[in-house]
């Protein structure tokens, strides 16, 4: 894996946004050669979406030939509910950029046949040629998307019942009324994300520090599903100083020492050579 350690949240989102931008530009997407991007929701990626929007407004980046697949969506929540992930993606990202609506895929939590919806999502990913870069965050319990502790590490897109902790944590978005919080969600599986050609995980803040430790310094374990990416050939993890609080000094020093190499990922002119080293 590559671990990029930045100073704070702002630097983390700046680095990550510039990485995503460079990845898309270097790929040279076109009408027959779409860049397929996996996207997260939540508070961590907000800063990245803001910065990507800025790149689009200054015409440094275009999403015209980008296809997106979101990680998850609540079951049973009206699509126009302010807390639905459709609303989140529209308000924070899609309404500000030049992406074609037909190239946007978000799971439909109100589909009459949820299993069929999940299977169709997997099929759509396959038809698009597979995901080039999957961006995600991590929960304090080390989960990726809604793959709560105990999720199969080879799971595919499916319905998951939310853990009680997750429901309590989400109540703050639903007038602090626990009865209003959705109890299940559709989510990509760990296996689905593993199929992506590259995985970028963003980790910010002390509340995620222990999860980061379990994800990269301990073994692969379905109780900490992000740890599955230790088996991915291109796992890029970007975090800030606060998130390293539970890591060994040795780990932090090693990866900080590589920063000059890592910075070429966003600055370098030669786009392909560096991408297969240091993993």
């Amino acid at each position, binding site marked *: 894996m590559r671990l990029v350690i930045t100073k704070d949240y702002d630097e983390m989102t700046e680095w990550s946004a510039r990485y995503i931008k460079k990845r898309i530009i270097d790929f040279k997407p076109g009408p027959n050669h779409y860049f397929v991007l996996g996207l997260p929701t939540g508070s961590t990626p907000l800063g990245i979406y803001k910065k990507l929007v800025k790149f689009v407004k200054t*015409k440094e980046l*275009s999403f015209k030939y980008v296809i997106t697949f979101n990680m998850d969506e609540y079951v049973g929540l009206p*699509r*126009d509910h302010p807390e639905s992930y*459709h*609303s989140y993606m*529209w308000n924070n990202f*899609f*309404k500000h950029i*030049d992406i*074609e*609506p*037909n190239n*946007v895929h*978000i799971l439909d939590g109100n589909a009459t046949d949820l299993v069929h919806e999940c299977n169709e999502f997997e099929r759509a990913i396959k038809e698009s040629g597979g995901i080039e870069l999957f961006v995600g965050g991590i929960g304090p319990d080390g989960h990726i998307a809604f793959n709560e502790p105990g999720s199969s590490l080879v799971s595919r897109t499916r319905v998951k019942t939310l853990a009680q902790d997750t429901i309590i944590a989400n109540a703050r978005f639903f007038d602090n009324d626990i009865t209003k919080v959705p109890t299940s969600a559709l989510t990509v599986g760990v296996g689905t994300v593993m199929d992506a050609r590259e995985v970028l995980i963003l980790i910010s803040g002390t509340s995620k520090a222990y999860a980061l430790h379990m994800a990269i310094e301990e073994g692969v374990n379905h109780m900490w599903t992000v740890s599955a990416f230790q088996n991915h050939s291109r796992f890029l993890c970007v975090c800030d100083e606060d998130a390293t609080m539970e890591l060994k000094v040795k780990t932090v020093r090693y990866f900080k020492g590589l920063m000059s190499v890592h910075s070429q990922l966003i600055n370098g002119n030669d786009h392909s050579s560096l991408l297969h080293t240091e993993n």
Partner: protein
Amino acid sequence: MTIYRFRNCTLMRNHALIIDDLWIRHGKIIDPEKIFFDEKIQADIEYDCQGVLIAPGYIDLQINGAFGHDFSSPNEVNENILIDVARKLTSHGVTAFLPTIVSSSIDTYKILLPKYKRQVGSAKDGATILGIHIEGPFLNEDKRGAHRTDFLRESPHGIEDLLSCYGSFDNVSIVTIAPEIPNMIENVIPILIEKYGLIVSIGHSMASLDIGERAICSGARFITHLFNAMLPFHHRDPGLVGLLTSHRLPATIVIHYGLIVDGIHTHSAAVRLAHRVHPQGLVLVTDAVPALGLPDGIYRMGADEIVVEKKRATIAGTQTLCGSIASLAECVQNMRQALLDGEINKSNEKKIFDDKDKNKFIVESIEAATVHPASVLHIENQKGTLSFGADADFILLDDKLNVLSTFIAGEQAWTVNDKWLINNLHIKSYQ
């Protein structure tokens, strides 16, 4: 149907100024999120609004005439006059109005009322004609203002007297009456509301607060030009002005009141007083006379000669004001200035104008000419708002709230100069 997207603008929406795009289709404001996820299409034509403010079009509930035309004068071409005014009012940012008829003879009502039909607005025909505002003749003689005494009437037989006076309420939206006239509260007001679906406004009245409250309880919901043609506020008998803070009315009732903020008819301190006490009820009206919109000069209006000079209209040879000639756009600007003036002496330190202050009182002033008048007519979901599903009647304003362009049903009806012509705002190629 073509989808239009207005970009690079600030919208007045949900009681705030927000940076967002305005999407229009088929003359209505649409929700782009639904278009994106349901229809999966993009806008067909995009416009760059150069960073201006977009507000709902203004609505005038009381206007007696404009551009030399008098709504209360029978004429062979009253219908043409109405359309001419409707078209020219777009230059004031007005996209809907109620032609107002002052106290007149039965014959006049017979001729005029059928002619002023409701009309959906368009770029071609101008502002929407929402209905007629009949101001009088059932008014109190002591507070008749400029109304002619010989046309004033009473209602000893209740609603029958109104029917025989007006003939029909078909094209009428608002009726202004003095509630102390016998039978008004007990008989007339409830019937006007329940049977004829009208909005009842009280004005030109000597009513005490008690009578005013009873009028509201019997269904009246609007006060015609507050402060004018009514008893002044007195601390032991607040009169109709006291309705703004009456404790004897159900909390669910919102009483709206017209206010003429032409800089002349209402002192700015009175504007601030009313606004501080009951901001949600404030409705800006022009109560304009036919000289509105005419350049400085001398004009003949009926039997009078009027002098229009520097925003005042006086009777020739006198200093007597003969009505308001401030456009609704100017009233909005005057209201904002009155509210700003009230802030200047509030703190001892010099206030540095930051971004938040730059937009102070813009929302309140615009709402007084948009969503508030729409609420009086119960059409606040359709007019006076930029909410999804509403009619696409909107205006472009600069930061001093000067009207730059007016759109009705999504089409450009007026522009101050070529810079704001829709074709010049068109974003030709989109990278």
